[in-house]
């Protein structure tokens, strides 16, 4: 009888305290948001961390890589432009395991992409991917990533060189040769950019990189369409000696079938000098030409200058 009572009481106590500990853990977690990530501010030396890992640095590198993905995902989710922990985390990860290829591949893209898609630190990205190539010279993916970073910086010669180096690696994708030639000959052209970003969009499995490529492709499309519209506006100017007051005027004159729409579904805008731009430039972070004159991008929430 007494034993049964103890068992019942212990069961009740177990259920109540297990539920209580779950609730308390939830409270503690809320107090310590990002505490694990902030540890890189305390132990930023890869050598020290390697020593502390007691030889299990491969496992620790995996843990740190998970932290990178978690941190990047969180910053993207909150649309923050502060990626200050990205470089220290990636540096620790790749120093702990110099053969962790995804860390160089995705890390390079995360670092190089402009905020809010990434840290906007292309030089750090180059440094990271170059170190990846030094440690893994036979992996063509890294040359491909490096070429892309240079391409985004409009250093077409360096991009062509990176693609070319990659194409000479055994088992490299034949596409690298085409990329090298395309960058060398038509580096600054829209169709080259479209080809490269389409390749990224179609080959990546990572949703963030896909989103990034999608953003670039959307911006390229908007730039291309604005360029075509400006040609029509210029022809109108040549015929009438003045710029049209709006696209509605061109539509009324049956020069355009209707008011042109940009890739985000907003109407293209036209200024007095015949310059065509998108309706909502803040949603085109990679757009280069179709922007209103004197446009300054709106700072993203929580933005801070990333540390180098």
């Amino acid at each position, binding site marked *: 009888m*007494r*034993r049964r009572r*103890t*068992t019942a009481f*212990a*069961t009740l*106590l*177990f259920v109540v*305290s*297990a539920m*209580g*500990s*779950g609730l*308390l*853990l939830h*409270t*503690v*977690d809320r*107090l*310590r948001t990002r*505490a*694990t990530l902030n*540890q890189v501010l*305390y*132990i930023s030396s890869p050598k020290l961390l390697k020593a502390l890992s007691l030889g299990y640095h491969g496992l620790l590198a995996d*843990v740190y890589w*998970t*932290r990178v*993905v*978690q941190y990047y*995902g969180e910053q993207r989710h909150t649309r923050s432009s502060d990626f200050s922990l990205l470089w220290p985390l990636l540096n620790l990860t790749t120093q702990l395991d110099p053969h962790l290829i995804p860390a160089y591949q995705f890390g390079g893209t995360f670092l190089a992409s402009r905020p809010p898609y990434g840290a906007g630190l292309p030089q750090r990205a180059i440094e990271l991917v170059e170190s990846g190539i030094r440690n893994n010279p036979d992996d063509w993916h890294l040359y491909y990533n490096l070429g892309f970073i240079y391409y985004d910086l409009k250093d077409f010669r360096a991009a062509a060189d990176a693609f070319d180096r990659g194409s000479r690696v055994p088992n490299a994708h034949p596409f690298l040769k085409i990329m090298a030639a395309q960058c060398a000959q038509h580096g600054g052209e829209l169709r080259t950019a479209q080809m490269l970003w389409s390749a990224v969009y179609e080959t990546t499995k990572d949703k963030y990189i896909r989103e990034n490529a999608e953003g670039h492709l959307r911006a390229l499309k908007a730039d291309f369409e604005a360029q075509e519209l400006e040609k029509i506006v210029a022809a109108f100017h040549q015929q009438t000696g003045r710029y049209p007051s709006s696209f509605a005027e061109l539509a009324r004159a049956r020069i355009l079938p209707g008011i042109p729409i940009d890739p985000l579904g907003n109407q293209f805008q036209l200024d007095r000098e015949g310059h065509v731009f998108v309706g909502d430039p803040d949603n085109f972070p990679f757009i280069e030409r179709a922007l209103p004159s004197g446009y300054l991008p709106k700072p993203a929430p929580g933005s801070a200058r990333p540390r180098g």
Partner: protein
Amino acid sequence: MASRIFHIAANTFREAVRDRVLYNLIAFALLLTGAAIFVGQISIEIERLVVINLGLTAVSLFGVVIAIFIGIGLVSKEIEKRTLYTVLSRPVARWEFIAGKFFGLSGTLVVNTLCMALGVFAALLYVSRNLNGADAWVLVAIYFIVLQFVIVTALALLFSSFSSPLLSAVFTFCLFVSGTFAEDLRGFAQLTHGFTRWLATGAIYAIPNFSALNVISQVAHGEPLSGQLIFWNSAYALVYSLAVLSLAILIFERRNLK
């Protein structure tokens, strides 16, 4: 009831002392003295940092090792030596035996930790020549380490109540390691979907969260800790230990000791 638990606890403490558990203090003293003299000569400006990091890590590791290796034998050793039957033949309930063992080992670890804490402060005084306000946070870090020991003791006792000493040591050690990475596991759960997410979330709540109790790096850099964290961490550690202990009692109550 309270006096029976107290007697079992006092006995456990005496037994631990007789087993020369407190001899680890000599090793600890040697380690800290050596480190304090050594870092004082080779490093600039980080002597305090090294002494706190090294001292508190040693306090934590020594304590966890003691908690595991003494904890796993608390029940099985009594069964093996047949002393458990003598105890239980008296008017002592099984749950009182478990509670007494838990308090006895926790007490041993508290005394051990207090001695080591004195050593850390002595080394700190030696390298910095004085103690400042920020050093008070070291005390909080030590308190959190004690909370870790309380959880590890409860876990070791739980496994000891139904498993062999070797397996108990393995299980407890595995839970200690996974608990150290509990916050990473939480991050992992956030990145997953579907069944894996459910599994990872379940694991987060099942394993003890030792990462929240590890503030060594923070206090070594003189960073203050919030009163809320101290309160909620204490509540979490005690309630979690209570859950583990009640499970241990539940198993031990139903165990056939014949």
